[in-house]
C-alpha cells in the first residue's frame, strides 16, 4: 500500500501528501502516515477536542479562584456584580450566541458545497466578534474612568466593602483572558474564510473549517459561564 504520488487508493478526491501538505482545491490532502483519510479526519477532530479540554482546564483555574473569593466575600461580590452593565453584558451574550449559530451554518454550507453562503456566514461571525470586542471596550473604558479596577488601581468610592478590588481583579482576568481567546478565534476564522474563498474546502475536505468552528464554540461556551457568574448572580 505504498502510495504513488499520482494515484490514491481512495479515489481521485484523496491526494496523498506529506504531513501538513496541501492538495489542489477541494481535494482531500491525505497525509500518508495515517492509515486512511477517515482516520486522519478522526485524529484531527480528536486532537482538537483534547486541545479544547486543555482550554477548559485553563479557565477552570480562574473559575476556582472566583468560587473561593465569592465564598470569602459573598455580599461584596453580589454588590459588585450589580455594578456591571447588565444590558451591555446581555447584548454581548446574544452577539456571541448568534456568532456561534453562524459559524455552525458556515460548516453546514461548506459540507453541502455552498462556499459562497459559507463565506457570508463566516463574515457575519467575524463581524459579531468585532461587535463583541467593541462593546467590551466600552465596558472596560467605563471601568477605567470609574476606577473600578483590580488591586492597587482600585479608586472607586461607591463600594468600600472588603473584597471589591478582588471582584474586579477576577472580572478583568476572566474577561481579559476570554477576549484574548476571541482575538485568537478571529484570527483562526479569518484564515479559514480566506481559504474558503480560495476554494480549498469542499464537501470532501472541510476539516479546518470544522475545527475552527469548534474553537469558536468553546470561546462562546466560556462566555456562557462567565456571563451569569459576573453579571447575574
Amino acid at each position: 500500500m505504498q502510495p504513488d504520488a499520482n494515484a490514491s487508493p481512495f479515489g481521485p478526491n484523496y491526494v496523498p501528501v506529506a504531513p501538513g501538505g496541501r492538495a489542489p482545491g477541494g481535494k482531500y490532502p491525505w497525509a500518508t502516515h495515517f492509515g486512511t483519510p477517515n482516520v486522519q479526519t478522526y485524529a484531527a477532530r480528536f486532537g482538537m477536542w483534547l486541545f479544547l479540554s486543555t482550554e477548559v482546564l485553563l479557565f477552570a483555574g480562574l473559575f476556582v479562584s472566583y468560587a473561593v473569593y465569592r465564598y470569602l466575600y459573598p455580599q461584596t461580590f453580589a454588590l459588585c456584580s450589580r455594578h456591571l452593565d447588565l444590558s451591555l453584558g446581555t447584548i454581548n451574550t446574544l452577539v456571541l450566541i448568534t456568532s456561534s449559530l453562524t459559524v455552525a451554518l458556515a460548516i453546514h454550507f461548506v459540507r453541502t458545497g455552498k462556499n459562497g453562503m459559507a463565506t457570508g456566514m463566516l463574515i457575519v461571525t467575524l463581524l459579531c466578534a468585532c461587535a463583541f470586542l467593541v462593546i467590551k471596550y466600552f465596558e472596560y473604558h467605563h471601568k477605567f474612568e470609574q476606577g473600578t479596577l483590580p488591586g492597587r488601581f482600585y479608586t472607586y468610592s461607591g463600594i468600600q466593602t472588603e473584597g471589591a478590588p478582588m471582584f474586579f481583579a477576577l472580572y478583568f482576568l476572566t474577561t481579559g483572558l476570554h477576549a484574548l481567546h476571541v482575538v485568537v478565534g478571529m484570527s483562526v476564522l479569518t484564515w479559514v474564510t480566506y481559504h474558503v474563498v480560495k476554494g480549498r474546502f469542499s464537501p470532501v475536505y472541510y476539516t479546518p473549517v470544522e475545527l475552527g468552528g469548534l474553537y469558536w464554540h468553546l470561546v462562546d461556551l466560556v462566555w456562557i459561564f462567565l456571563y451569569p457568574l459576573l453579571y447575574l448572580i
Partner: protein
Amino acid sequence: MSSATVEALPAHQPGNTEEMPAEHYLNDGKTVFSWLGTLDHKRIAILYMVVVLLMFLVGGTFALLVRLELLTPGPTIMDALTYNRMFTLHGVIMVFFFMIPAIPGIFGNFMLPLMLGAKDVAFPRLNLMSWYLYVLGAGLGIWGMINGGADTGWTFYTPYSSMTPTQILPVLMGAFVAGFSSILTGLNFIVTVHTMRAPGITWMKMPLFVWSIYATAVIQILGTPVIGLVMLLLTVEQVFGFGIFDPARGGDPVLYQHLFWFYSHPAVYIMVLPAMAVMSEVVSTMSRKNPYGYKMIAWSSLGIALVGFLAWGHHLFVSGQSTFDAGAFGVISMMVGVFTAIKVFNWTATLYKGSVTFTTPFAYFCGFLYFIVFGGMTGIAVASVSLDVHWHDTYFVVAHFHFIMVGATIMAFLAALHYWFPKMFGRMYPEGWGLVSAVLIIIGFNATFIPQFLLGNMGMPRRYYQYPEQFQALNVASTAGASLLAMGFLIIAIYLAISLKYGKVAGPNPWGSHGYEWLHTQSPPITHNFHGQPVYPQAPHDYTGPVEGEVTHAA
C-alpha cells in the same frame, strides 16, 4: 506463526562483525536544516536528547554548587543570595526542563511509533513545534536566571514571589512556554495511540511502555493548563499587583498553593510514569519472560494518573488546612502507593524463573526497584499527617522526593539510554563500563541522600544557607556522595560519546527482545521505520515461543 508476519529481521548473532545498515534515519540528510526542520519523530527525539542532556548538565552543575556551598556550616563559596538563586535554578531546570520532557520527549518520541507499527506520530509538525517551544522555554528560563535570577525556589510561593527583588518573570515565562510544549507532546501521543496502531495491536496488546506514556500524556493534558494559568496569575501579580494572592488586598496565598500543587503533584507522575514505562520494557526483555500481570501493570498506570490528581493537598498539611482535609489527602496519597506496589510486585514476579541477563539496563532496573520502594515507603510516611508536621520543609522531604522522583527517573532515564542506544544509534556501549558507572551512580545517589534523610529527621530545614556545627559531618557525606554521582555521569558521557562512533555494530535486535520496537525495524531504523506495513499477531513481550525468523541463542 502465521504467514501474515512481515518477514522479521534476523536477530543479531553474537560475535558477528556486522556492518551498519546503509540507509537509516541518521544519514538521511546531513544539512543543518534536515535536522532543525525535520518532521521525523526519530530525529525530533534526537533533538530533544541534545537539549535535555544540556539541561541535565546545567541543572546538575548547579546541584553540585549547592552541595559545595553546604560543605561547611558558614559561607563557603558563595553569598546567601547566590545560594538561593542556585537552588532555584537547580529546581526549575531539573523539574521543568529536564525531568518532565526527558523520557517522553526522547524515548516517547522515538519508540511510540515504532511500538505501534506507525510511520510517525499523528501530528509530526506539532511535534517539531513542541520541541521549538521547549527550546524557547528553556532559553527564556536560563536567560532569566543569568539576568536577575529568581531566588524563590522552584515553587514560586506567594507572597514572597510577588515581593522578591530578583527578576522571576523570565523564569516564569520560560516554564509557561515549556508547559505548552508538554501539552502538545501529550496531545500528540494520545491521538497517536488512538489512531496510529498497526493491524493487530489492540488496546490490550499495546506494549506496556505505551500504556504508561499514555497515562503520562493524560496528566500532561489535564494538569499543565492549570500551572499555565498559575504562572499567568503570578505574572499579573508581579507586574500589576492585582492582589489575587496578596493577603493585604484580600487575597489568599493558600489558594496559590492549591493551584500550584494541583499541577505540580501530578507532575511528579509526569516524571515517574515514563520511568515505570521504561522499566516494564527492560524487565521483560532482560528476564526473557512475559510481564507478570500485563493488565494490572497497564491499568495501574491509569490508576496512578487518576489518584495522582486527587492528592495535592499533602503539600498543605501545615498551611492551615482543616484536619479532615489533611486526613483525606493523606489517605488518597497513600493510595498512590497501592498502585505503585502493584507494579513493583508485578515486575518482581516477572523476574521469577526468568532467564536474567545482568546488563546495564538491568542494573538500573535493580536500582530503580530499590529507589521506588524506599522512596515510596518514605512517601507513605510523609503522607501521614502527624509525621509530616515534624518533617515538613526539612531535608527529609528533600531526600524523599529525590529518591522517588529523581532516583526513579534517573534510573529509568539511564536504563532507557542504554537499552535503546543500539536501536537509536546502531551501536553497542561497553557493557563493563556501563555496569561500573551504574554501580557508582546507585551508590553515589544513596550516599548523597541517605545523610539528608538523617539530617531532616534531626530537624535541618531545607533551603537554608547556613546550619549549626553538629550537622556538618552528614552534609560532608552528602556532598561526597554527590561527587561520586558526578563521576558516574562523567564516565557515561565519555563512553557513550565514544560508542557513538566506535561502538560495536549492534544489529537489529542485540537483546533478542520480543518488544514490538525491535521486531520489524533495523538499527538504526530507516526514515519511514518499516518496509511496508508490519502486522503484529503476537502479544508484546511474548517469550512463550521464538519470533519468526529469530535464530535462537542464549541472549
